[in-house]
């Protein structure tokens, strides 16, 4: 109805009067003219309810004229023979006007109620959606989406960030330049609706509403302003702005709380790390310092003792180096600072290099059997990271095994994956610990006589997973452990081997 030209309701009420007149014409033989007044009153009531005050008032006057012209003798003139009809006219007019007023009022109330309901529904939907939003980004999307529906135009949301206002959400067609930000900033700083249709910078193409809470202003809602919106939409946008302010504040608070939680988690981790590492770093340093001070101070040491002390210090420095390396690797893997460079690699070469990097004293008398077919396909991997993985796994296999126990390395193809198995015949892992063996800093009680940081396998897991692979463990207490690294054999890589 709103889109109809404004004269349309008047025309319709006139048509209704014409219809009433025709009906009156039909029944006037049976009824006294004074009773026909009822027909016109009916028209006025209908007009008032359907089209409001204006058409009803005009219908009241036209009804009097039509009644006079058509039904009051002498008919088809405006002159009145019987002056008592003048009283009828006055009565008709007054009653019609009173009805108009009352009916129009009722209509206004009904419309208002409808609007309130629509508004309530919309705001209800909005708050329901907002309640389900889990972060600021989602909150902004919901707000933006609802605002766009109400304004039926492009919208944007500005939030303060480092003392300047920044666009945090916008529909694709909303261009935000320096000018737009400036008008928004004005709205933000002055707590004022600015832009199109206001007294402040009305020439800008959009309107800017400050988002107010009791704490202050949390942002600015902007919508493109082409023509003034109807009152209802304006009210709704204002209501949305109020809700938006609260929702944004809440989301920001939640985010802050989450960060604090993260920080606490990090602190807990750092504490753990500090405890574990300070012990592990100190132990080799104690040996090194002790050995060196004996060598410096005690001139009476025989050559054999000197040699032993030196060897001890040397081995401990290797261990220290390994711990520091593990810590660095862990940090790199965790923070995503590792840049992966994946290239096709010859598995037996990678295994060879890994073994080469393990100190000779560690390998000692352990027989190491490698079963990798010369035809084994090349695997796409980051060479240096995969070497770290294999070194860590082999180092574990060696250090948790009796001095002469063998270690076997097997490679096989399972579906589209290469599976590399490292099997030792060492102390094994209790089954209750198997699920946690790849956790950071986890060390099985069973292994506490052997020094370690509890980082090696966590690093391996990080690296293998970064290769879209999988690392598994099978173990039997006091019989041995098998670690399986499964890496995808990619399509591209199969091609390069199809020579």
């Amino acid at each position: 109805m709103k889109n109809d030209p404004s004269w349309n309701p008047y025309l319709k009420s006139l048509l209704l009067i014409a219809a009433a007149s025709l009906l009156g014409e039909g029944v006037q033989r049976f009824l006294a003219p004074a009773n026909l007044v009822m027909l016109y009153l009916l028209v006025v009531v209908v007009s008032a309810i359907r089209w409001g005050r204006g058409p009803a008032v005009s219908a009241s006057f036209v009804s009097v004229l039509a009644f006079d012209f058509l039904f009051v003798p002498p008919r088809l003139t405006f002159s009145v023979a019987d002056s008592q009809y003048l009283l009828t006219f006055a009565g008709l007019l007054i009653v019609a006007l009173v009805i108009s007023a009352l009916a129009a009022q009722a209509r206004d109330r009904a419309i208002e109620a409808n609007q309130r309901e629509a508004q309530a529904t919309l705001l209800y939907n909005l708050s329901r959606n907002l309640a389900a939003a889990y972060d600021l980004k989602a909150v902004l999307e919901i707000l933006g989406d609802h605002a766009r529906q109400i304004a039926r135009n492009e919208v944007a949301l500005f939030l303060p960030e480092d003392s300047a206002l920044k666009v945090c959400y916008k529909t694709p067609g909303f261009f935000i330049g320096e000018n737009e930000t400036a008008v928004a900033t004005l709205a933000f700083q002055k707590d004022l609706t600015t832009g199109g249709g206001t007294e402040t910078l009305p020439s800008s193409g959009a309107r800017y509403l400050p988002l107010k809470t009791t704490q202050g202003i949390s942002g600015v809602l902007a919508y493109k302003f082409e023509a003034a919106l109807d009152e209802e939409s304006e009210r709704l946008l204002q209501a949305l702005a109020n809700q938006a302010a609260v929702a944004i504040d809440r989301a920001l608070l939640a985010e802050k709380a989450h960060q604090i939680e993260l920080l606490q988690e990090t602190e807990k981790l750092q504490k753990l790390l500090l405890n574990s590492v300070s012990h592990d770093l100190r132990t080799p340093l104690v040996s090194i310092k002790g050995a060196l001070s004996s060598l410096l101070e005690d001139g009476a040491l025989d050559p054999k003792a000197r040699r032993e002390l030196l060897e001890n210090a040397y081995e401990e420095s290797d261990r220290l180096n390994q711990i520091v390396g593990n810590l660095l690797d862990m940090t790199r893997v965790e923070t995503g600072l590792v840049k992966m460079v994946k290239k096709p690699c010859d598995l037996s070469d990678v295994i060879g290099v890994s073994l080469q990097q393990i100190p000779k004293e560690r390998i000692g008398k352990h027989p190491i059997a490698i079963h990798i077919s010369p035809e084994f396909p090349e695997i796409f991997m980051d060479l240096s990271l995969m070497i770290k993985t294999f070194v860590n796994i082999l180092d574990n296999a060696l250090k948790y095994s009796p001095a002469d126990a063998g270690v076997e390395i097997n490679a096989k193809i399972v579906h589209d994956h290469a599976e590399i198995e490292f099997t030792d015949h060492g102390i094994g892992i209790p089954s209750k610990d198997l699920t946690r063996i790849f956790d950071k800093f986890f060390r099985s009680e069973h292994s506490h006589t052997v020094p370690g940081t509890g980082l090696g396998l966590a690093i391996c897991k990080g690296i293998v997973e970064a290769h879209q692979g999988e690392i598994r463990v099978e173990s039997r207490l006091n019989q041995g452990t098998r670690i399986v690294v499964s890496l995808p054999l990619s399509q591209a890589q199969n091609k390069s081997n199809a020579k």
Partner: protein
Amino acid sequence: MIKPDAALRILIVDDEKSIRRFLKTTLHAQGFQVFEAATGQEALENSVADHPDALILDLGLPDMDGIEVTREIRKRSQIPIVILSVREQEADKIAALDAGADDYLTKPFSSGELLARLRAVMRRLLPQEEDQVLKVGKLTVDLSKRMICIKDQPVKLTPTEYDVLKVLALNSGKVITHRHLLQAVWNKTEDLEGVAHLLRVTMSNLRNKIEPDPNRPFYILTEPGIGYRLRSEL
């Protein structure tokens, strides 16, 4: 093997005093004459003033990067340069080698490793002869006769395998990059990634012929991500 005499002069460039001290003591005991520099600028000046025969260069210098120092020095001198660094990323090593360094060593290292590297790069100072015979353990590489023996038994190599081994033997003890090998043996300068598998396959075959345990190579060592190195001493 070269016996360094007193005439060989080494310039140590490292900003850590304790590392310079340890290097100085070790090298001095081996009969080298040792000079020091703590910054890149000093390194550039002293590499002229001290007339060193070789440079030991740290990458992380306070005023400029060691790679930059290498590049500057290479503009006017072919002096052997061994890089010392805590950086273990392949990219850093390749960048240093591409800039003109002869070899590198990752910190921490043992003095034995450092001396072996120094000997290998300084061998370049001696007159190079194509007809030299290299003997490491049971492996003999006789370039004049094009003969490779394991335990005095000749090994039959394909021409490509021989060429790869020849490049490594001429630079024994030194790291040779993939790029260097692909250029020298296959004459490839472009799309090195695409032909890298030729080198890997040849290397695998070569190892199968000369290594006692091809899965755990002894003579031809892999420098992960960089290249290969032929062992020059036991």
